[in-house]
């Protein structure tokens, strides 16, 4: 079993989930409450990664971050480094790819919150941000949790984007799914089987844990 690849995978999943929690919450809240006609365009953009194959995303990420692009040159002049074949590079791909898996459950959870409770809170003189944190978030917690778990699980299972922009570097961009593919191609079925079994066990345990948590949270 490739423990280093497991570490990379977990790091990628934790980072992706944290970033999408921070960025996804305000975006999802806006999607849930905004009454703007053009909103459907934003919704469509958020949902795009659900429909597009990872190769499309990988293609664009590689093209956009390479040294011939405007973005790639900007990043290089700011940081002195480049995004392709680095951990931040696959993290960028992963965040984009997982956007709908976080934002959509967040948004539907927010939309299900009774508006009257929110307005009551405002009328009682509580500020919007405090209302959001103390009324909206606790009420929509099961939905938020679902979004986080989906994002985490989906990142663990990510393959195409990482293969296209990662460059398969041990300890940096070689995730479990890429390591299994590598073992398969090197005809090392034993290693592939072991790593695959670890991944199945881990994913199963993580999902059981979340369903259990979800049940407790929603029965509170």
């Amino acid at each position, binding site marked *: 079993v490739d423990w280093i690849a497991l570490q990379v995978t977990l790091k990628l999943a934790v980072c992706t989930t944290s970033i999408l929690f921070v960025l996804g919450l305000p975006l999802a809240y806006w999607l849930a409450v905004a009454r703007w006609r053009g909103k459907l365009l934003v919704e469509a953009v958020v949902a795009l990664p659900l429909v597009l194959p990872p190769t499309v995303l990988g293609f664009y990420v590689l*093209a956009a971050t*390479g040294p*011939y692009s405007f973005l790639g040159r900007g990043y290089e002049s700011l940081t002195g480094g480049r995004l*392709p*074949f680095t951990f931040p590079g696959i993290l960028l791909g992963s965040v984009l790819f997982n956007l709908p898996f976080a934002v959509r459950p967040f948004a539907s959870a927010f939309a299900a919150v009774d508006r009257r409770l929110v307005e009551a809170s405002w009328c009682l003189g509580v500020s919007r941000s405090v209302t959001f944190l103390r009324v909206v978030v606790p009420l929509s917690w099961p939905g938020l949790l679902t979004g986080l778990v989906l994002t985490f699980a989906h990142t663990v299972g990510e393959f195409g984007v990482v293969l296209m922009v990662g*460059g*398969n570097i041990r300890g940096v961009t070689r995730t479990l799914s890429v390591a299994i*593919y590598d073992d398969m*191609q090197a*005809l090392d079925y034993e290693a592939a089987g072991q790593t695959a079994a670890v991944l199945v066990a881990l994913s199963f345990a993580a999902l059981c844990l979340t369903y259990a948590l979800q049940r407790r949270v929603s029965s509170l």
Partner: protein
Amino acid sequence: VAAAADLQFALDEVIRAFEKEHPDIRAKVTYGASGNFFAQLSNKAPFDIFFSADAGYPRKLVEEGLADKDAEFPYAVGQIVVWVPNSSKLDLDKLGIKAVTDPSVHKVAIANPRHAPYGRAAEAALKKLGVYEQVKDRLVLGENIAQAAQFVESGAADVGVIARSLTLAPAMRDKGRSWLVPADAYPPLKQAGVVLSWAKDREAANALRTFVTAGKGRSILKEHGFQLPGE
């Protein structure tokens, strides 16, 4: 037809010439990593003929009883080059293999040595020419040799150690410069093919084999940067 990724452009042209000579045959080619094809063919993937980038895989298929002994044939010897895009400032003629150790180089693309023959050749050459230790942390691994070429063609990697055949293809020919890695720096990339025992159209597969090993196919492969067996 299952074909190694280094044949991507050469074989397209071979097939065009082949179909002109045999108007009744249509060949459909799938390109990929040889190791991948081997795993698929071990599970009886529906291909009639397999052009590997390595003589080992066809040999193993014969040993496993998935092809007859006389169905195996050598067809080319691959070469590797150090390649940089036109925008690179590296002077390959002067630097040779030392180009990969230049401080301006962040990433060097090769195919994955664990399962791609060209990756093994590149790794062997870097070791033999004494630059491997300096360059090993800069290596990025393509899933097959075509992806390694794409990494450097797109500028995402600065230098590639890749198949000469790919750098002579129209998509790359005018976009960069290359330095031929001396043949004694790596074990020869003997490429072989095999006609599978479950070939649906054995006659057509054999016709393609003959075309590549004895017919016009030879000169086309040569133009595309392959050496020929026995030359």
